[in-house]
């Protein structure tokens, strides 16, 4: 069983569209994250979330929004996609904000 799974693995879409990336973890963790890794390979945290608190990196545009239907899922919604949103997006989870984090395999988003 995959600990942290993301779908889809690849996503190609046109500018202006709205899309979602799903993330599920089966580890019973309380904290989940979304990261963006751009073409320069810099890994930037976008959100961290647990059942009590959502922390948003202030540099993330409000076109990006996390949605958590339950503790095991943290989906990423992106509105009005732009060319600069093209990147690999990673979901991760950990028991707390301090402990080992487990990452998904990534979703490569290409905006054309």
């Amino acid at each position, binding site marked *: 069983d995959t600990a*942290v799974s993301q779908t889809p693995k690849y996503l190609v879409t046109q500018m202006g569209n709205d899309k979602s990336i799903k993330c599920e973890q089966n580890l019973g963790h309380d*904290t989940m*994250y979304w*990261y963006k890794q751009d073409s320069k*390979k*810099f*890994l*930037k*945290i976008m959100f*961290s979330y*647990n059942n009590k*608190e959502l*922390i948003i*990196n202030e540099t993330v545009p409000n076109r990006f929004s996390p949605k958590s239907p339950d503790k095991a899922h943290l989906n990423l919604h992106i509105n009005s996609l732009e060319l600069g949103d093209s990147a690999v997006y*990673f979901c*991760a989870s*950990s028991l707390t*904000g*301090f402990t*080992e*984090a*487990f*990452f*998904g*395999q*990534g979703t490569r988003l290409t905006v054309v």
Partner: protein
Amino acid sequence: LAKTTQPISMDSYEGQEVNITCSHNNIATNDYITWYQQFPSQGPRFIIQGYKTKVTNEVASLFIPADRKSSTLSLPRVSLSDTAVYYCLVVRLTGANNLFFGTGTRLTVIP
């Protein structure tokens, strides 16, 4: 959280021991040092975490001097499969939003 500084890249021959040093001058009392490894087209993977002195597991050792302003990840007898980017992070014992990744060190193992 303390900013970390690492070499951008390193090369090593197979079978050698590799030491990657990370600087974190402003580390606080509640902060731990954590290292992750990332292979191409994969998410990062936890390697090791420590607070002070030495921590060893089946993959690596982590050396942290008494002032904790730096740390060294040691990979014994590297193989080609150890080619990856290695990230040093400072994580706080309490609080959320801890996992800030820097630029990392790209290690290339040469046959």
